[in-house]
């Protein structure tokens, strides 16, 4: 465990925490948008199933895939709630770290200006607490990153399903047009989510630049 040195590195640390907070807030907004889009997918998957039922034997392959899409959309929803929980924990912890920094800076200033014997011990205790918070943030950051990776992999699989559905739609005889439309929309939305998640994974919140 490294001890924080709030005095010497205070400005950059405070700035870093401030920047982290802005980044995490932006990630949060993006994830909220993705969760909204993911919700649409559920309805689309249901539509695909109804359509496949109507097409019956004419679109057997599409029918199998539409069930897969339905399972995918549920998994995606679960993945999004995991992401939401992680992002909330990160927002909270970044705020705690930001508060620690202000608190410690005031304490340090007080201790340095004063002759109180207890000052150093109180400051050291505060820094141990700060380190605990910083470590927790590092852990949460890793967990969020892992959850994003999981969601990304899931969405890639969803993309493969959507593309297969598009191909199967072509064999849907008289239903080929509506099936192509449904699978095309599905593919479009999955692609939208994939692009969002990809850019989130590249966020400087994870790379630290």
């Amino acid at each position, binding site marked *: 465990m490294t001890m924080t040195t709030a005095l010497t590195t205070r400005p950059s640390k405070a700035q870093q925490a401030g920047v982290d907070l802005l980044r995490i807030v932006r990630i949060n907004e993006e994830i909220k948008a993705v969760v909204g889009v993911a919700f649409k997918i559920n309805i689309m998957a249901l539509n695909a199933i109804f359509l496949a039922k109507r097409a019956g034997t004419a679109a057997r392959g599409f029918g199998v895939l539409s069930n897969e899409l339905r399972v995918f959309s549920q998994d995606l929803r679960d993945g999004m709630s995991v992401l939401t929980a992680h992002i909330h924990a990160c927002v909270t912890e970044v705020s705690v770290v930001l508060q620690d920094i*202000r*608190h410690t800076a*005031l*304490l340090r*200033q*007080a*201790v340095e*200006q*004063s*002759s*109180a*014997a*207890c*000052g150093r011990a*109180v400051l050291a*205790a*505060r820094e141990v607490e700060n380190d605990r918070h910083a470590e927790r943030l590092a852990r949460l950051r890793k967990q969020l990153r892992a959850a994003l990776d999981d969601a990304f992999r899931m969405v890639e699989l969803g993309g493969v399903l959507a593309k297969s559905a598009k191909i199967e739609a072509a064999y849907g005889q008289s239903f080929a047009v509506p099936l192509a439309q449904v699978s095309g929309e599905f593919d479009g939305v999955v692609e939208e989510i994939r692009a969002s998640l990809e850019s989130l994974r590249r966020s400087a919140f994870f790379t630290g630049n």
Partner: protein
Amino acid sequence: MKTTKTIFQDGNHKWIAIVRDPDKPNYLIDTNEYLVTHGGQGLLLDPGGAEVFPAVFSALSSEFDPSALSAIFASHQDPDICSSLALWLEFNPKMRCYVSWLWSSFIPHFGGTAETFIAMPDEGLDISLDGLHLQAIPAHYLHSSGNLHLYDKIAKVLFSGDVGAALLPPGDDGLFVENFDAHIRHAEGFHRRWMGSNEAKRRWCERVSQMEIDMLCPQHGAIYQGADVQRFINWFDGLQVGICGS
């Protein structure tokens, strides 16, 4: 850093004013903090805002061990009164905070736990500081709706929170009021606008004029002493308050 001035002393029974920080930025209102000590214990009155904590702490610790502070007395809930609470608690997590019952669930937003707060009833409270008997007396609506002052009968000192406050011009930084008429001009606007109730003011003036007071110590501005104490009470009694200029 602020300076400390001992304004009363009898053995280890002391009143120490913590005042005037030359380094304080102008956008923060200047505040006076007071430390009462008796035996081995200390009671800090209106410890001030988080931003001035380093200045107050360092001045206080030049006189007193901050970990021996047994309690904080908060006259009311304003940020300039006690937004530094969480920082003081770092030095003594067992420290208590006396505050009007009205604010005892509001001030924890500045820090502390359920054990930290001692809610003072409207009629006031007797507080013992290592055997020294202090009295929290009602000053509600002056200006806060849950507001108490602190009286030390032995030292004959009344800590009066925002009552008696003056917004002094730069350079006017004497600790005691020297020319009452000149000084009170800087107090008038503050009292008219910040104090909300003529009725409450009337009752306060009646109450405190019956008390023996050598020094009336406000949270802003200068200390009234001797004849200026009664002069202030009379002036305040005659002032119409609760008035907004516009």
